[in-house]
C-alpha cells in the first residue's frame, strides 16, 4: 500500500461514521446546549440569556438523585459482570459447536418489546402473585414482604435488561483467546484458578472494559426501570430529566441536567479507563 494512502486510511474509516455522529448528534447537542442557557416560558417564548448559574442550581437541586443513579449503575455493572462473566466464559470455551446458538439464546429474550418483558416480571413478582404468594402461603415469607416498588426491584430490573450488554463483549473478547496460551498456562501454573487469574482474565480485560461501559453508561441515565418497577425513593436522574422535560416543559433545566449527567459519566469513564488502562489492559 502506498505510504500516503496508508496514512489517510484511518481518516477514511472514520469519515462516514464520524460525519454521521457530527451531523445527527453534535449539531443537535449544540442546540441543546443553547437551550440550557435560555430563560423564558412556552407562552412568551425563550431567549438566550447565557444563564450559566442554572448548572449550579440543577446540580444542587438534584444531587441526591445523581448520587443514587451513580450508585445503582455501579451496582448493576458489578452484578452484570459477576453474572455475565461465567456465562460468556462457558459459551466461549465450552460451547463447542453450539456457541452461536447459546449466544443467541442469551440475546433472544431481548427481541421482545420491553413493556411485555417488564409486564411479565410484574406478574411474576406481584406481592400475592404466583411466586411470592405461594411462598407466603407456606409461611416462608412474611406477608408484608414485597419485591416490586423497592430499590432491589429497580436494580434487578436494570441488571436483567442490561445483561446482554455485558455478555456480548465479554464473549467476543474471551472467544478470541488462543487456546494454546491456556494450555501453556496450565503447564506453568499449578491450578486452573491461577491460569484463569494470570492468563484468561487479563486477556479478557478489553471485554470487561467494553461491557462495563455498555452497562454503566446507559444504566445511569435509565428511567424506565425506575418508573415501572420503582417507587418514590428510587427516583433516578433519568426520571427527573424526563419529568422536567416532558411534563413540566422546563426545557432549560432538563437540558442543563442532561449535560451535568453527561459530564459526570465522562469523568467516570475517564477514571475507569485510566484505572483499567494502566493496569490490566497494557499487558495484553
Amino acid at each position, binding site marked *: 500500500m502506498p505510504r500516503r494512502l496508508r496514512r489517510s486510511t484511518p481518516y477514511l474509516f472514520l469519515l462516514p461514521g464520524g460525519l454521521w455522529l457530527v451531523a445527527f448528534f453534535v449539531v443537535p447537542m449544540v442546540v441543546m446546549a*443553547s*437551550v440550557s442557557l*435560555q430563560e423564558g416560558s*412556552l407562552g412568551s417564548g425563550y431567549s438566550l440569556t447565557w444563564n450559566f448559574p442554572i448548572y449550579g442550581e440543577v446540580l444542587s437541586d438534584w444531587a441526591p438523585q445523581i448520587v443514587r443513579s451513580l450508585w445503582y449503575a455501579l451496582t448493576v455493572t458489578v452484578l452484570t459482570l459477576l453474572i455475565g462473566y461465567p456465562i460468556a466464559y462457558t459459551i466461549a470455551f465450552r460451547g463447542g459447536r453450539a456457541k452461536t446458538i447459546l449466544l443467541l439464546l442469551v440475546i433472544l429474550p431481548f427481541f421482545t418489546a420491553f413493556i411485555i418483558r417488564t409486564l411479565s416480571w410484574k406478574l411474576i413478582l406481584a406481592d400475592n402473585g404466583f411466586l411470592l404468594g405461594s411462598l407466603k402461603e407456606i409461611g416462608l415469607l412474611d406477608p408484608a414482604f414485597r419485591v416490586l416498588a423497592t430499590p432491589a426491584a429497580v436494580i434487578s430490573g436494570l441488571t436483567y435488561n442490561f445483561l446482554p450488554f455485558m455478555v456480548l463483549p465479554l464473549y467476543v473478547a474471551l472467544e478470541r483467546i488462543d487456546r494454546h496460551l491456556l494450555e501453556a498456562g496450565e503447564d506453568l501454573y499449578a491450578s486452573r484458578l491461577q491460569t484463569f487469574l494470570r492468563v484468561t482474565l487479563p486477556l479478557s480485560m478489553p471485554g470487561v*472494559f467494553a461491557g462495563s461501559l455498555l452497562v454503566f453508561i446507559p444504566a445511569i441515565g435509565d428511567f424506565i426501570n425506575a418508573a415501572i418497577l420503582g417507587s418514590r425513593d428510587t427516583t433516578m436522574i433519568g426520571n427527573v430529566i424526563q419529568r422536567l422535560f*416532558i411534563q413540566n416543559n422546563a426545557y432549560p433545566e432538563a437540558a442543563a441536567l442532561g449535560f451535568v449527567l453527561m459530564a459526570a459519566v465522562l469523568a467516570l469513564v475517564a477514571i475507569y*479507563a485510566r484505572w483499567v488502562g494502566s493496569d490490566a489492559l*497494557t499487558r495484553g
Partner: protein
Amino acid sequence: MRDGHWHVMGRQTGPGRSSAEPRPRWPGVAAVVSLVIVVAACGIAGQGASPASTGSPDGPGPQTSSPAATVASSPTAPSGESAAPTGDTDPSPSAGATDTPSTAPAATPAGQLSFANWPLYIDIDEETGGYPTLEKFEQESGIDVTYAEDINANEEFFGRLQPDLAAGNPTGYDLIVMTDWMIERMARLGYLQELDHSLLPNFEANAEDLFRDAWYDPENRYSIPWQAGIVGIAYNPTLTGRPITTFDDLLDPEFAGRVGMFSEMRDTMSMALLSLGVEPVNATIEDVERARDKLLGPAQEGQFRAFYGNDYYDALAAGDLAITIAWSGDISQMKLYDNADVEFIVPESGGLLWVDSAAIPKAAEHPVDAHMVLDYFYDVDNAAPLTEYVGYFSPVRGVPDRVREDAQAARDEGDDEWADQLEIIADTAFPDEEQLENVFEYKRLSEEEERTWNELFGEVVTD
C-alpha cells in the same frame, strides 16, 4: 483529567504491542474539541438563520415565532398548499357557513383527512382489523380518512408536535384527541383552530349538557369531547378489610405501602385539594402548598407504593394495591374480567371529571373534513358502536339507551356474553346522579401556576 482521559484511551486501544512506536501526546486535544464544536455550530448556522445568535432558540419547546423556524418551514408549506386546491377548486359557500376568520378556509371538504387518536380508542373489527364506523363515514362522505393510532401520552404527543405548532407548520394531522387539560394548554398557546359550529349540527343537537362549555374550553371554541370518565378511588375490600369512603383513607397508615397515587399532577393534586375542602377551580397557591404538605409526610414515610400511570390497573388487579386513585371506566372492566372484588367510589370530598377531546391543530390542511367526522360521531347511530367498544362515558345523548337496546338484541340472539358486557357498558356509559353531584372540574392553570403546581407536586413524587 481531560488530557489524562484521552491519553489513556489511546493506550487502552493499542495495548502493549505497539508501545515502541512514538505516540502523539495530544497537546491540542482541547483545540480539536473546540474546533469540532465550532464546526458543529457553523453547521447549525447553515441549517437556518443561526438560532443562537438571533436568540430564538429551538428547543422543542422554545420557539414561539422563531425566524429560523419560519424560514425553515417554507419548504413544507407548498406541499400543504398544493394539497388544498384538489378539494378547494369550487369554493361554493355551504349551508350557512358564517365567516370564520382564517380557521376554516372554506366549508367544502377536501376529500381527505388525517386523524390521530390513541390506540384502541375507536371501534375495531377484531376479525378484519378495520374500523367499521369510521369506514361507514368514508363511504357516506367520500372522504378518505387516514386514521392513525399515534398518540401514546398527552405530554409526549405535545412534545412531538410543539416545534411545528410553534413555527406555524402543519403537523400533518387534521384532528387530534387530547385530554382536557392539554386541550386547554394548546388553546392557550394558540396551537388550535377555532371550530366552526355551523359545521357541527349533531353536536349542537345531541351533546350532553355535562360536556358543553367546560372549564378547559368555554363554549367549545376549540374542541368537542370524544370520551370521558371520572377520577375517583378504587379499592379491594378483601385487602382493606373495610369499605372506603374518603380520600383520607388513602393516607391511613394501615395501608402503608399498598396505596397507589397517580403520576398525573392534576389528578393527584386536585383530589388532595378536594379533600381539604377546596374546589380546584378556586385553589390558591397556598391551598396547593397545603395539599403538598398533606401528601408529603405520608409519601416520605412510604405510604404510597408508587406514582402510577396506566399501569396502576395491573397493580390493582394483581392485589399489589389495596387502595388507589383510579379511573372509572377501568374499574368496571376490572370487575368484569380481572378482579371481581374491586370497587370504585367517588370519595365524600369529591371526584373529578376528565374529558378526552378532539381538536384541530393550527395550520391543519383539511379542517372542514375534520369537522365532518367529528359531527358524524355525534350521531347516536355512530356514537353507540364507539362506546360499545371503548366503554367510557359517551358525550352523546341517548347512547346509554341505544347500548341497552343493543344488549337486548344480543340477548335475543342468544349471545349472552356480549349482552352482559353491553349491559355493563350501558350502565357506565354516563355518570349516574350520585356521581354527578360530587364531581368537580379541574382548574385552568396559567403557565406560571402550572410551573408552581408542578414544582410542589415534584416534591411529593421525588425523594
